[in-house]
């Protein structure tokens, strides 16, 4: 069969002639005279050549031609634009001033290079079209790279990698890169550069590859330019970071860092390539931010501490962002914030404890003289306790706001804040007492006149503080004490709010806490019912005795109420307080007791006169014959004392000893009550002889007929009695001791519970479990736990495990 001749019409084809035509045409294309050419003719010629098996030679001739053209025309044009500053720049020497000159040179050079590339690109595309047949058949068969790829590679070797001048061996590529880097450096100093020009050159770099295999990673951009760019950026930012830290303040540093980040982002979008985006950002992060952020945060005078104090939310959120870029845990920022909170908190702690000088513990003779002073100090202490809570809450609100707005509710920061709050709150020994006093104040007075929402919010804040406090059982004791006083003296602003408080506590802190508190409430409710029942009972008895007294009784279950704080135990340990009541009162009392015991047999009632109060209607006869009536509200003891004077003729008196004998009131109570009745100016219902401020044995008391008061109802307060105040150091110690005892029993209960379940546990694990179980109430001391274990072993609840080297315990049933 004849060789494949295709559509050649049997012309003999002479290679050189045909090639001549083609070569001429190619040159014309390069000279931009394509319109004079006929595509078809060229295509046909190439077609013929390929059919004649001259494909390979055609290919070689074409590449030879391209090479020649590139070398002669293009390169020379480009090299012309190379000036000495550019060469100096490329060789790495620092070129001083002449920024303008350099930029102008650089721009011209880039421009020429860009145009050359563009032209080359277009021409090659056209040539590829013409030689399409060859490509399709020859190149594919022989697996040669396409003409286009070959041409581009030639461009790379002939132009870019060729030496820029005859003397040096810096190639054009290097000059290009250094010019671009130079311009970027200028832009970083806020000069304007020609961005599109640079972009075009970068595109060129992106489109050229190192080898014929056009794989992504071997782009010239990535292999050659990008590393240099990253390196020069690193140096730049390194220096800039150092400058800024030395000269600028924290806020400026952060703002500047943000600006740079944005700038680099823009640069990647517009000038360079998005491939570099992540990498340059990480360079900035590392050099500018990472190296210096800690210093910035801790900067004197303008660092985070200053920002926190002055509520510079924007600066803080800048710092936060920057820190999170380099450190997801934001350790530096966290440290600074925590330190600040703890130091502020300690200040608050110091303020509250340092404000008051605790009174020295003197012998009892001076005790009464100093009662006045003590009272003042105690009052001050109460006030400062309340202030402490207020201060802490203010601090919390402030930092919450900062957390929300500047730290974007980051959970790491939240934990850090919580931790530091806990730290300083628990560093203060008296925090549970303070909190309870604060709530006491609030529940007594503060809730009036506020909307439900406000009240709710305030209670929530209180609960929040409670959650931070570690020694919750201490708090429970204080709260019980204060609550009992409130309930008994009817001082709460509203029972609803009290109940609200309890339910909140239950929700947040748990049941065990609120059980006893709730039963206190129940007792009060029961007592009200009981009193009503008693009244009906009495009415049913018929006998309308005008001298009958209205009795209101509150029955308190001993175990639930903080009895010890209210009641003084006698020597025999009983809680009954002796008091001889006047006959009318005694009758009423007996009747009630009878009534109650009938209802609940098997119980005993012990009357607590020191907690009660009485309303007396008193008639005062003036010297001019007029009578004035007043209603006096007095404590039970005072009532007993006053009734003594009922059967006394006007000018007779009772001496201190007599009163004591006839009422059996304990001495200190007696003194206090007599003071309030005879010494306190506004309520001088009794006249004292001598008129001194102290009550001494031998004093005589008369009923004061000339007592006057602008009010009808007069309340006789008892000196330094019932209000909930801060404890002095004695009381505090006593409370602590009691609390420790209680803790001991709780720990023992927990140990027994655990061991019963597990039967056998190693020592360390037992301790760990106990701590975990009790975490909600308080932080048990490891030594205490050990002591309790020992005591349990003595009492034969536990015994030591068999292996002496591994301490462990077994439960004994």
């Amino acid at each position: 069969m004849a060789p494949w001749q295709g559509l050649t019409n049997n012309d003999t084809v002479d290679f050189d002639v045909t090639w001549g035509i083609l070569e001429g045409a190619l040159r014309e294309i390069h000279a931009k005279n394509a319109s004079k050419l006929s595509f078809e003719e060229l295509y046909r010629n190439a077609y013929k050549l390929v059919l004649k098996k001259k494909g390979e030679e055609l290919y070689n001739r074409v590449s030879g031609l391209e090479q020649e053209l590139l070398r002669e025309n293009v390169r020379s044009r480009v090299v012309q634009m190379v000036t000495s500053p550019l060469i100096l720049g490329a060789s790495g020497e620092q070129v001083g001033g002449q920024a303008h000159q350099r930029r102008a040179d650089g721009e011209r050079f880039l421009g020429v290079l860009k145009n050359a590339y563009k032209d080359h690109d277009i021409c090659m595309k056209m040539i590829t079209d013409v030689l399409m047949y060859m490509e399709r058949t020859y190149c594919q068969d022989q697996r040669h790279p396409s003409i286009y790829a070959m041409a581009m590679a030639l461009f790379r070797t002939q132009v870019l990698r060729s030496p820029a001048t005859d003397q040096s061996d810096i190639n054009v590529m290097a000059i290009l890169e250094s010019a671009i880097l130079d311009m970027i450096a200028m832009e970083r100093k806020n000069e304007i550069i020609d961005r599109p020009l640079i972009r075009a050159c970068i595109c060129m770099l992106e489109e050229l590859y190192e080898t014929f295999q056009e794989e992504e990673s071997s782009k010239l951009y990535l292999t050659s330019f990008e590393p240099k760019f990253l390196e020069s950026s690193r140096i730049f930012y390194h220096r800039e970071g150092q400058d800024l830290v030395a000269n600028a303040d924290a806020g400026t540093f952060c703002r500047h860092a943000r600006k740079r980040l944005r700038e680099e982002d823009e640069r990647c979008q517009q000038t360079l390539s998005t491939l570099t985006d992540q990498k340059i950002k990480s360079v900035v992060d590392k050099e500018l931010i990472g190296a210096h952020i800690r210093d910035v945060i801790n900067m004197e005078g303008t660092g985070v501490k200053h920002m926190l104090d002055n509520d510079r939310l924007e600066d803080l959120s800048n710092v936060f962002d920057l820190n999170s870029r380099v450190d997801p845990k934001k350790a530096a920022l966290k440290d600074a914030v925590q330190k600040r909170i703890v130091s502020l908190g300690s200040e608050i702690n110091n303020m509250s404890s340092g404000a008051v000088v605790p009174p020295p513990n003197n012998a009892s003779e001076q005790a009464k003289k100093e009662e006045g002073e003590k009272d003042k100090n105690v009052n001050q202490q109460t006030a400062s306790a309340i202030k402490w809570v207020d201060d802490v809450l203010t601090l919390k609100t402030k930092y919450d706001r900062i957390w929300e707005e500047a730290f974007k509710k980051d959970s790491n920061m939240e934990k850090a804040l919580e931790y530091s709050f806990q730290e300083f709150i628990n560093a203060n020994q008296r925090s549970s007492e303070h909190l309870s006093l604060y709530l006491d104040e609030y529940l007594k007075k503060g809730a009036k006149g506020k909307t439900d929402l406000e009240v709710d919010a305030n209670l929530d804040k209180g609960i929040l503080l409670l959650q931070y406090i570690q020694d919750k059982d201490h708090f429970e004791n204080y709260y019980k004490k204060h609550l009992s006083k409130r309930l008994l003296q009817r001082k709460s602003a509203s029972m609803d709010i009290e109940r609200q408080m309890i339910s909140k506590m239950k929700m947040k802190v748990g049941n065990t806490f609120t059980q006893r508190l709730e039963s206190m409430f129940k007792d009060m409710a029961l007592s009200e019912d009981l009193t009503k029942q008693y009244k009906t009972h009495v009415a049913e008895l018929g006998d309308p005795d005008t001298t009958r007294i209205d009795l209101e009784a509150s029955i308190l279950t001993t175990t639930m109420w903080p009895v010890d704080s209210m009641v003084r135990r006698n020597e025999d340990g009983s809680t009954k307080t002796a008091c001889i009541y006047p006959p009318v009162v005694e009758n009423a009392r007996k009747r009630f007791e009878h009534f109650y015991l009938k209802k609940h047999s098997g119980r005993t009632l012990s009357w607590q006169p020191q907690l009660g109060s009485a309303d007396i209607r008193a008639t005062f006869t003036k010297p001019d014959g007029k009578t004035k009536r007043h209603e006096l509200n007095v404590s039970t003891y005072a009532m007993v004392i006053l009734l003594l004077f009922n059967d006394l003729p006007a000018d007779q008196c009772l001496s201190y000893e007599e009163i004591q004998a006839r009422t059996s009131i304990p001495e200190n109570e007696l003194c206090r009550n007599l003071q309030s009745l005879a010494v306190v100016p506004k309520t001088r219902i009794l006249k004292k002889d001598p008129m001194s401020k102290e009550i001494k044995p031998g004093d005589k008391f008369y009923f004061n007929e000339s007592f006057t008061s602008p009010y009808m109802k007069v309340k006789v307060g008892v000196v330094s009695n019932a209000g909930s105040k801060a404890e002095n150091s004695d009381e505090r110690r006593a409370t602590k001791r009691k609390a420790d005892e209680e803790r001991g029993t709780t720990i023992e209960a927990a140990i027994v519970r655990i061991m019963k379940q597990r039967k056998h546990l190693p020592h360390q694990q037992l301790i760990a479990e106990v701590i975990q179980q009790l975490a909600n109430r308080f932080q048990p001391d490891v030594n205490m736990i050990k002591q309790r274990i020992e005591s349990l072993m003595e009492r034969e609840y536990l015994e030591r495990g068999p292996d002496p080297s591994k301490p462990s315990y077994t439960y004994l049933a």
Partner: protein
Amino acid sequence: MTVRSTTDSTPAAGIDSASSSTSPMTTPSPFVTLISSDGFEFHVRRSAACVSGTIRRMLNTRSNFSESVTGVCHLENLNAMVLEKVVEYLYYNEKHKESRDVPDMEIPSELCLELLMAAEYLDT
């Protein structure tokens, strides 16, 4: 093998000789002329003609070869008989571009060989 055709997006517009004024880029007429070796002229719609890769590249307005300027292609290799069938095929292809299972076009057997070569030449 990657074929870079001039119809792919090129950032630069077609270049023309630096000396002459740039020819105004008027919207090309919808019809082009294909001329066979024996001088027969076939007016075909541009869209149909461009089914053939070679003709498409020839008429590419960006490359500014003479054919694209004038809208006339001299196909010296093909005689009228062949070219006629080719044109028919171009229309057939364009008409049925979207549908599948298209029945083959009718081709007289004596033209087969030449049509085959034409197809190869014209990249279609």
